[in-house]
């Protein structure tokens, strides 16, 4: 059964662009061999690390969204562990979390629509309705005023 995973790996700053690309093709190769596909690849470029890893202070971040089996991810994980060029990597399963997020989103909009209909309003928010401007800002002002007044 195929699941969706996110893989982020941090490549050593010494690596050239070609080496980074090569790593990507390696990962892709493993994925294809084991019946998986890469849905998305994102290169975040070189970023500062929040703390030193080894002696490195920077790293190139690459994100891959992979559709595949657990065995595939295990293999990729193993390969990245032995690759010296990769200084850190993380595999996270995302399909379940994503479905939960989608469910809460649809549920929330459904509830709000139902309530609006019950109040005799059109189900969707009309333009120019509700709080003006940034709602967060608005609330802040009210609180600050209250504090000053006392």
């Amino acid at each position, binding site marked *: 059964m195929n699941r969706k995973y996110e893989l*982020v790996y*941090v490549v050593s700053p010494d690596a050239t662009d070609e080496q980074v690309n090569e790593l990507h093709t390696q990962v892709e190769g493993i994925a294809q061999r084991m019946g998986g596909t890469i849905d998305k690849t994102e290169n975040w470029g070189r970023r500062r690390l*929040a703390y030193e*890893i080894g002696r490195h202070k920077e790293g190139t*971040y690459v994100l891959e969204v992979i559709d595949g089996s657990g065995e595939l991810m295990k293999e990729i994980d193993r390969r990245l562990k032995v690759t010296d060029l990769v200084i850190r990597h*993380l595999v*996270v399963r995302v399909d379940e979390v994503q479905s939960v997020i989608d469910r809460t*989103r649809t549920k929330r909009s459904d509830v709000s629509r139902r309530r609006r209909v019950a109040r005799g309003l059109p189900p969707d928010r009309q333009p120019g309705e509700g709080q003006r401007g940034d709602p967060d800002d608005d609330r802040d002002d009210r*609180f600050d005023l209250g504090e000053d007044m*006392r």
Partner: protein
Amino acid sequence: MNGRKSFGGGGGGRGRGGQGGQQQGKDGQQRRPMFRRRKVCKFCADKIDDINYKDTRLLMPFVPERAKILPRRISGTCAMHQRKLRTAIMRARQLALIPYTAE
């Protein structure tokens, strides 16, 4: 219920306004209790469903200077979102997106 007591203990440092009112409240002005900004869960209020480890902009306010995770009693985050926040922060730390400690 979580009004005066919890504030007296926890409100010491972290930039919560209106400290001046505390004594007054004790002295007997029960009519007007100290004005306090109600704590709300940021994620519930802003309807953020996805607390993602990649989103450092979202996570950073919850890891102040010492880089420790801000406790619920101070941030006001609800239990569910604090749990999600925690996993997100821990993942981001693994990838060196967020520090474990301040150096």
